[in-house]
């Protein structure tokens, strides 16, 4: 599948005093159709700058940025304007047009489409009905609640079915429940149409809707391990992650590489970041038997760690098709994590119980 956006070796600078200050360093990122990516980072880390560059709202300086296959380096203002018509934008403060009705707001995105006014009205009406605002077509934004406004804004960003949707802190002005509804709505509508979504957010509560999380620190793009772990261990609280800082490492694995061998001493806990991992049983004189496939945001290795001194109960290797990446946490850190957090313990135990009661696992894993 062709990427919707490809960022390569991108640098960006802001003027400062007489000189300039670099805010983005060697950014590489590809966005694929149907993917929901969350971009996080501290204020001033450059994430909004990256968002505006991908959104064709700023002219490029260095590197390469292709949107829908069109190179943006040295692109004219007119070309960027034309590309913007194929992108949907969602804003923290909704940015609705106060002087337009809800219907007119949404329909304002359809001016670039060659369609009859009746068709545009119908498409607007249908989408507003889908987001639960079918009866507010003639209301003005000032008559709506924050959540309703954001739904209108989402409708406006999606009504022309853009293949790329950019959202800047879409939940920041909303309470947590409404924020949750809103991002679910973005995700569901985008998935329906196969659109890619890039969300810039600070909001940890919505990280789980992402297929992928990336983080900008001081202008450099990194995989957001901490956030990835939050997805894997949703009950864990922020303060524990702070304790973890520096006590874990990421490991890259080649396709087919064995991560742990059955019978080894259990000393490490893994959270999958990329790729597919397989738990297998090595049976002599026959091909290894696949017990289970594990994907992103799942974890393994916890069973051995929960009981001190135990051995690995199965072999885990990376699937033959693609390389893998995982976060590795040592026994000591894992123990403290589980000990300090009742919730995490509960979560891990729950996962454990689930695996043990899985009939296939139980049968194939008698040692556990």
């Amino acid at each position, binding site marked *: 599948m062709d990427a919707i956006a490809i960022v390569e070796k991108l640098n960006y600078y802001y003027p400062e005093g007489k000189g300039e200050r670099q805010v983005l360093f060697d950014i590489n990122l590809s966005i694929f159709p149907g993917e929901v990516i969350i971009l996080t980072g501290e204020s001033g880390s450059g994430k*909004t700058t990256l*968002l*505006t560059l991908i*959104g064709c*709202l*700023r002219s490029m300086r260095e590197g390469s940025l292709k949107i829908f296959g069109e190179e943006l380096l040295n692109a004219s203002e007119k070309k960027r*304007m*034309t590309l*913007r*018509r194929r992108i949907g*934008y969602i*804003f*923290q403060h909704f*940015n609705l*047009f*106060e*002087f*337009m009705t809800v219907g*007119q707001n949404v329909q*304002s*995105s359809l*001016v*670039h489409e060659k369609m009859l006014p009746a068709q545009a009205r119908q498409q607007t009406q249908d989408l507003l009905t889908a987001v639960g605002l079918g009866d507010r077509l003639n209301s003005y934004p000032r008559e709506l609640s924050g959540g309703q406004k954001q739904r209108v804004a989402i409708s406006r960003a999606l009504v022309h079915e853009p293949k790329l949707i950019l959202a*800047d*802190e879409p939940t920041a002005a909303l309470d947590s429940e409404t924020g949750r509804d809103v991002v679910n709505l973005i995700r569901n509508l985008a998935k329906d149409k196969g659109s890619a979504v890039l969300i*810039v957010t600070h909001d940890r509560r919505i990280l789980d809707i992402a297929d992928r999380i990336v983080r900008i620190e001081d202008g450099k793009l990194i995989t957001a391990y901490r956030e990835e772990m939050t997805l894997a261990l949703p009950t864990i609280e922020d303060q524990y992650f702070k304790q973890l800082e520096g006590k874990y490492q990421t490991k890259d694995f080649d396709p087919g590489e064995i991560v742990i061998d059955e019978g080894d001493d259990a000393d490490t806990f893994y959270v999958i970041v990329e790729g597919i991992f397989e738990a297998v049983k090595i049976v002599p004189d026959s091909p290894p038997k696949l017990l289970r496939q594990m994907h992103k945001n799942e974890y393994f290795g916890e069973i051995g760690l929960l009981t001190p001194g135990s051995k690995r109960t199965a072999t885990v290797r990376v699937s033959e098709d693609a390389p893998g990446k995982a976060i590795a946490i040592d026994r000591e850190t894992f123990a403290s994590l589980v000990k300090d957090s009742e919730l995490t313990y509960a979560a891990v135990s729950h996962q454990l119980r689930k695996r043990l009661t899985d009939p296939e696992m139980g049968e194939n894993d008698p040692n556990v």
Partner: protein
Amino acid sequence: MQLRYCKQSLAIAWWQLRHQKAQTLAAIVGIAFTTVLLFMQIGFRSSFIGSLVQFPKSFDCDIFIVSASSVTVLRPLPFSERRLYQVLGVEGVESVSPTYINSFLWRDPRDRSLFLRQVMGIGFPLNSRFFEAPGVADNLDKLKLNKSVLIDERSRPEFAPIIDLFRQQGKTIEEIKTSSQGGLHRIKVVGLFELGTSTSFDASIVMSKSTFLSLFDRHPSQIDWGLVRVKPGYDVDEVTERIREYLPNDVRAFSKADVLNKERNFYEYRTPLGLIFRFGLLASVVVGIIILYQILYVKIAQSIQEYATLKAMGYSQQALTLVVIGEASILAVSGYIPGFLASCWMYEFLETATQMIFVMRLDVAIAVLVSISFICFVSGGLAVGKLKEADPADIFG
């Protein structure tokens, strides 16, 4: 730009104006006010000049002959009647007639110790049929009686009591003063005619040549205007030229069209009034531009985030410019209409009050509409500069 963008831009202009009703209303009032100012300046100017030339226009002649010492045809100095009859020998001249003009004072019927100023007396031979103001021809017989006069029924309001008295009684005896020493005369108003006033006279009367000569103690050979009619088929300018060559240079001849133009130009460019009118016109336009620019600028500044959002959504700079121009145009038209109606009412009021001519002419109405549109385009064009501050890169974060 494609039609659907134009429609959307104009719709946005309309929605924005409708959204901020108080501000829009203020803008409309501002433009209506500017419209009235323009109509007032133009109305005063054309009424002033129109009233000035109304008097020479009322004469059915082709050429005026005046003394070479006269500054303008409307302020003549007497010259010898002989010059006029010499003209009869010029090829192409059909007929000639003298006209006598003098101003005098009129005793105020309401306060008999006062005299009303700036009354114009017009005298001519009753058989000459050159003065064509309405009502004159019908009443010529009545003027045959000595000291009988017709009074202009469109004189200034202070003469209304005299006209009313005439209407009630069919005639009225009035007292006038024709020179600084003595010169008191009684005259009999026997009829009405219509001429209208100007800045140089508040009322006028017409009378026979003999009445004029006796009232103003004038020697019969001293006339103010010589009027000349040209034979059909002759070019007026050529005949005028021939008269000039024929007569000595103590008199001058002007075609009627030339006289009207000269009068207009004299007041337009040689008196401070013309300059004041032009300055007033320019000031109204500048004030209009400033008012509207201010309103549009504030509107754009208030909506800068919305314009930036529209830009982010792929609206072009032209589309947004059209929004601003659309707003300016809507304001122009909706300010012009009440301004026009108010001006019609103002003209009527001024005409009644001054008895000068205030006509709402189509060409003036269009000229003011064009000026208002000009004001709107200039102020819109200036305000569009503010749109550049709507940077789509600023809408995030």
